[in-house]
Structures are given as structure tokens and as C-alpha cells.
């Protein structure tokens, strides 16, 4: 229980601060912390493999791409000053978000959730592999195709018209 609370703290606080900061780099770095918290949650929940995948994909890859994108788009006009409609947007966002939060919390707290007799046994990597290759082969293939297409699409999108160097190809 305490473990979960710590994880919740590590996950939520950086995420909330990240969404409020003006410095995008700081936001990205804080979000990495938040993602690491989620990985800790997976670990806590007994999904070891998932935890490492989460770190590898989010901390190792997505955050890098995000930081790279931030650096590539360094000089943007957002640095100049606060746009006039920022406050309004923030307020609206907060309002909607708060409302959704209220609804969700209410729903969760008011629903009696059936709890299994005992927590699920932690899956082994081997077990996962067997599952993947036997029951979810189609899904695996689809994901593979999706990833390939996404990679190609990203390359095509990000490669500029004239100087499409390999460094642009991510």
C-alpha cells in the first residue's frame, strides 16, 4: 500500500508540474520521471517485463525523440512571451480536466469492484512469449506492421525536402 502511494506520488507530481512548466526541456525531463514511476508501478504489480519495456521505450526512446524534437525546434516564438489566449485556454483546460477528474473519481469510488481471490501470478518472460506467439500472433503481426509503417512515415515526414540526411531519419 505504501509502495503504491509512493509510486503515485512519483508519477503524479512530476506529471502535474511538467504540464505547468514553461520550459519544455524541464517538462520532458519531469515526464521521464513520471514514466519511470509508471514503470515502477508495473514492477510493483508484478509485470517485470512490462516495467523494463516501459523504461526502454519511454525513457530510452520516446523521451529522446521528444528532447530531439525540442532541440530541433529550439527557436520558436513561444519563447517570446505569453500568448494572449493562454490564460483562457488554461482555465478551460483546468475546468474540463477537473470535471472529468470528478466524474472519474466519483465513478471509481462509487463502484464496488469485484476483486479476485488472489492477485495474479507474475508472468514469466517465457510465458509471455508463448502467449504472444500462440494466442496473439495476429496482434503481434499487426503491431509489427504498424511500427514499420510508423518508422517509415516518421522518416518521410521528418526528412526535409533538400537535405534529407540520415541524421534526420529517426
Amino acid at each position, binding site marked *: 500500500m505504501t*509502495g503504491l502511494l509512493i509510486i503515485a506520488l512519483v508519477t503524479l507530481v512530476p506529471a502535474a508540474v511538467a504540464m505547468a512548466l514553461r520550459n519544455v*526541456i524541464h517538462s520532458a*525531463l519531469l515526464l*521521464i520521471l513520471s514514466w519511470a514511476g509508471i*514503470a515502477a508501478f508495473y514492477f*510493483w504489480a*508484478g509485470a*517485470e*517485463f512490462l516495467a*523494463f*519495456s516501459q*523504461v*526502454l521505450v519511454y*525513457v*530510452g*526512446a520516446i*523521451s*529522446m*525523440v521528444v*528532447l*530531439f524534437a525540442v*532541440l530541433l525546434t529550439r527557436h520558436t516564438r513561444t519563447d517570446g512571451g505569453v500568448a494572449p489566449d493562454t490564460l483562457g485556454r488554461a482555465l478551460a483546460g483546468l475546468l474540463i480536466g477537473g470535471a472529468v477528474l470528478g466524474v472519474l473519481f466519483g465513478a471509481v469510488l462509487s463502484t464496488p469492484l469485484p476483486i479476485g481471490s488472489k492477485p495474479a501470478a*507474475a508472468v*514469466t*518472460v*517465457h510465458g509471455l512469449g508463448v502467449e504472444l506467439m500462440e494466442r496473439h500472433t495476429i496482434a503481434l503481426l499487426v503491431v509489427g506492421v504498424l511500427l514499420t509503417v510508423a518508422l517509415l512515415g516518421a522518416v518521410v515526414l521528418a526528412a526535409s525536402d533538400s537535405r534529407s*540526411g*540520415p*541524421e534526420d*531519419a*529517426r
Partner: protein
Amino acid sequence: MNAMPGIFAAATGADSLLERWPILFRDTVAGFFPAPLQWLVGSLISILAIVAIFGGVFAALTLLERKMLGRVQNRPGPNRTGPFGLLQPIADGIKMLTKEDIVPRSADHLLHFLAPVALLAFSILTFAVIPFGRNLVPLELDAAVLYFFAAGAATELAIFMAGWASRNKFSLLAAMRALAQLISYELPLLLSFVPIIMLAGTLSMTGIIDQQAGWNFGFIPKWYIFTPWGFAAFAIFLVAALAESNRSPFDLPEAESELIAGHLTEYSGFKYALFFMAEYFGMIALSGMAITLFLGGWRAPLPFLEFIPSYLWFGAKLLGLLLLFIWIRGTFPRLRMDQLTRLAWKFLVPLALFNLGTAAFWSLTSGWSGPLQLARWGVAIALVVVPFVLLGRGLSRGVAPRTYRFA
């Protein structure tokens, strides 16, 4: 909440005392504590042992590197502090500790401070799953390989933090380079050992080492490096590992001739020493990984040498790989950024993919014997060499030795 897995598996009685003493020592010391604390004390002892041993290895490695680079360059290397310069690391340490810690005024102070700490923390984390000897695995994980690379992936993040927080244009360029390098080399690094996992059928380090037990013809160890695809995978892994640990010829983020010291430009004193330490730790960890994946882990190379304790074999292999890294550093010029990424995307990644096929072929034909065995080797070698030559030709297009005319 499930308890952390056992820090060290219990020692089996079959091993010699020499082999078992580290674990016996830990268990004895932990035995003095009440039972609920024993696992904690045991883990602390392991952690302390790792930090102390690899701290010592790091210190020795700084000296070894300078000595060996000196020899490569026909110099004796440091030899002033202590006999043969053996106290040089201590002198360096004192120097680093007493130096002023300078932080640029416009730097991002928090990140500037956090970067070396994070880097060191993550590189020490990677040690947790490496089997240093028979039963000497600090953390036995089911998905140990994945853990290793998850922890390792965060190191470049720290380099980015260092470069970005310094508010120095050279450091910023270094940060960009570090990111690009990470993005490029993570893939070949991961792809290179996928065949191993495929054939070993496990992500656990111990499992992989167990798969490499035994001897062919009674004396050739069944290490993965002694198969065509394993050798190719090892080469790819080595190149990618050099790039991941920012070693020459891939030390672009800190390319001293271009970016002064890259992300390290604005670091001094102890923080600089931390970076240095983390970099060497990373190198040691990747070498340990290579040993585990390709070189049979802590296993002896010949049957009659098995009486030597396994951790010594691990150490010997580690030393060999580290010397190879230093040797390479002493020989090669540095690549350019675009060439670095091109090497990764146009050469290493396709090669690793081909290698996956080769490994699959190897796995499918495991039943062949006699003359078929020869054919199996031949096909596998061809499957490694032909893509290498073809891709290499494509990579080095437009680059060739030239002849010159005379007036």
C-alpha cells in the same frame, strides 16, 4: 508486494571453497543479524562489494588506459607517482576532489548538478544483473537482459542533461550528438543479441550462460562467439557498445578537437570525475554484457582450466575486452556525425537483421551432422560474409585509396 528476488542464489556444495567464499562470507556476516534484516544486510554487502571492486577496477583502468595509450604511442605512460605510477589514480582523485567546482552563472543549476549523479547512478544500476561468477549474480531477474538495456538507456539522457544544462553552445551541440547517437545505436545494439535470445530461449543472464556450457570436440567451448552468426553479432555488439559508451572512435559528444570537451566543457572537479567514472562503469558493464552474451560468461575456455575460480575468468575476459577497447582508441580517428548515423542505419542495422536470419538458419539446421555439418557452417559463413561485403561496399562508396600523378 512480492519480495525482491534473492540477491545471490545459494552456493552449491559441489564448488570449491575458493569458488564459494564470496557467498559464504556474505551469508556469515548476514547471519549475525536478526532474520528479517538478513536480506537487507546481504544486499548491502553485495552492493558495497560491487561498488568497491568496480571502483577499484575503474581506478586501475584509468591507469591502465594511460599506460597502454602511452605504449601505443611509444611513451612509458604515467610513472611518477609511486612505483610504475601505481598511485597515479589516487593522485588524480585527490586532484579532482580539491579542484574548484565551477558552474556557469547562466547554467541550469539543478540539472547541471543532477546530470553526473544520474549518469553514475544508472551506470551502477546496470551492474545489478551481470553474473560475475558462478552464482555471483547480484539480482537474478527473469528479464535481466531487458533490465540491463533499460538501465543503460538512461545514461545518454544524463549526457543530454549535462550538455543542455551547461548553457554552452559546444555542450548543446554535444547534447544533440549524444541524442542522435543514442537513437542510432540503440537499435543495432538490441538487434545484435536478439539471435542469442532466440537461440538461448531466455532473457535471463544465467540462462544464457548455461546455454553456453560444454565443449565441442572436447576443447572448443560452446560459446556463441564461436559460431558464424555469433561472431557477427559480437562484432556488431562491439561496435554498437563502443558507440553507446562514447568511446573512440565514436566519442563524438565529447570530441575534443571539435567541441572542446562537448558536454563536459563546463564541468570541473568532482563532477567531472563522476562523469569519468560513469563512463568507465558503462564501458565495464557493456563488456560484462558482451562476456555474458558471447564469451560464455564466467566459464573457463578449456576444460582443464575449470579449477580456477569463475570470477577470475570473468575478470580475465573483462580485462581482455577493456584492453581491446583501449587498443581501438589508440588507433582510430573519429567518425563524423553523419557517418556515424549512416554506419548505424545503413550498415549495422541491416547486418543485424541478416544475422537474425543466419541465426534462424543455424537453429533450424541444428540437427545436421557429418558432411551436412560442414555445409551448415559454409552456408552460415556465407550468410555472414556476403552481406558484410555487399553492405560494406555500399557504405564505403566514393571512398577509396587514390593514386597520384607527378608533374
